[in-house]
């Protein structure tokens, strides 16, 4: 691979000064946890598959729909509303709040609903953390259209006319403690607004509830992650701590967990066309606040409908 080549839309030298590469190439210095983290970072970097939208396989998705339907309908009692709000054709940025730790049942429920509603023929990509795509045994996600979260990949997908599902909150939001389960928390990540503006595509907020009840999430473990340097090495700003089956105390959630069968409800809101609503010169902060406020109001309404955790 040449010096300017990228893997999966990420620069092989994301910090620009070669510091990260040097750190990854010389894991033999520093304390043991740091050396382990560096070794892991090297493995992850090597395992991130090259970005290729063509890896999405409609036939595979179609054949997977029945088992996804079983999981979604029987285990999570999924309920998806408002799919008619998503424009029938053309590129669209689906912006979701993310829940459930490293296993995100809301994504499964929504992907099934989207694929069944619009048909597997409609191109649909989901942006995921590098770790998800590089984890052994999760290669099948690429057939569903999951690509590494990066502006380059999102741009490529939107240019192809696809629907793109992004979770701006990412690892920050997905590991929030259970007492913040009904809070939309993107951590100030405004990239999706710029992306929508750049490609002039509508934003459709996708609000889900229930995912954060699939385990007892206690802490994001941000301090622990910083201590181990995972934030710089793996773009991993958290090292979550939770009580989850079958592990009991679960640190990192790297091996996933068995999610509790919480009822998952997802609601797609009407599309937001930023330039129509905010004029030609859109203030990114204002648009970001608007989207988050709409989503939080919807999440509050969904939470008000919910009588009991897990049962819905």
């Amino acid at each position, binding site marked *: 691979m040449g010096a300017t080549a990228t893997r999966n839309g990420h620069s092989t030298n994301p910090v620009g000064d070669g510091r990260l590469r040097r750190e990854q190439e010389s894991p033999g210095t520093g304390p043991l946890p740091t050396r382990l983290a560096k070794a892991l970072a090297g493995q992850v970097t090597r395992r991130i598959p090259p970005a290729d939208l063509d890896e999405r396989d409609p036939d595979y998705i*179609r054949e997977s729909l029945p088992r996804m*339907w*079983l999981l979604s*309908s029987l285990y999570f009692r999924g309920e*998806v509303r408002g*799919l008619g*709000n998503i424009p029938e054709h053309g590129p669209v940025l689906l912006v979701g709040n993310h829940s459930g730790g490293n296993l995100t049942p809301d994504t499964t429920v929504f992907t099934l*609903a989207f694929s069944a509603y619009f*048909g597997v023929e409609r191109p649909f990509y989901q942006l995921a953390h590098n770790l998800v795509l590089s984890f052994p045994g999760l290669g099948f996600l690429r057939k569903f259209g999951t690509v590494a979260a990066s502006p380059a990949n999102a741009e490529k997908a939107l240019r192809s006319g696809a629907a793109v599902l992004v979770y701006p909150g990412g690892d920050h939001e997905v590991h929030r403690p259970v007492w913040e389960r009904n809070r939309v928390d993107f951590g100030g990540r405004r990239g999706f607004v710029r992306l929508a503006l750049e490609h002039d595509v509508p934003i459709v907020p996708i609000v889900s509830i229930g995912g954060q009840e699939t385990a007892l999430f206690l802490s994001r473990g941000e301090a622990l992650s910083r201590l181990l340097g995972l934030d710089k090495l793996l773009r991993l700003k958290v090292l979550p701590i939770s009580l989850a089956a079958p592990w009991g105390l679960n640190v990192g959630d790297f091996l996933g967990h068995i999610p509790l069968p919480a009822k998952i409800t997802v609601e797609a809101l009407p599309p937001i066309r930023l330039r129509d609503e905010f004029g030609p010169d859109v203030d990114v902060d204002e648009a970001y606040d608007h989207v988050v406020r709409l989503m939080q109001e919807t999440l509050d309404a969904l939470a008000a409908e919910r009588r009991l955790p897990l049962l819905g």
Partner: protein
Amino acid sequence: MRVQANIDIAAPPATVWEFIVDPGRYLHFMAGVTRWEVAGDDATGLGARYRTLMRVGSAEVGGLIEVVEWDEECDLAWSSVTGVDQRGRWRLRARADDHTHVELRLAYGVAGSGILGWVAEQVAAPTVRGHLRRSLQQLKRQVEHEQLRRQAAARRGVTSGGATGASTSTSNGS
């Protein structure tokens, strides 16, 4: 997996046929159906295409279907073009006293989905069967109401002009 339901309606086949060939009426009598939208140039007849969705469990399942058999006042069958594999059929058979025996069949599945696909078909069957039964009950109620209305109009010597729905209807915000 094939499920079916049947019912006797106190109206001649011609009246029932009017209902089942009009795509605008489907959302009014088909239980569980959230979309029945004309997808081609022809709103009805052999080769007409519709985009259909039926709520089953956590998803609205369906796809593009095409009318592949059209035997006036007797049989109407469709087959899927995209989406979940499905074949459907209306069978109308005349009975004595201007009654019609109506049978609605739906075969569905996903080729290549393996054992879990078979399990999903079995799990979905009671829901789909329930949709078909309720659809026929609603069809019976609507057709018989229309039949009574026409008979009453005929008695009064007024020409019947039954309202029909629009050729395209959607729900769920579509």
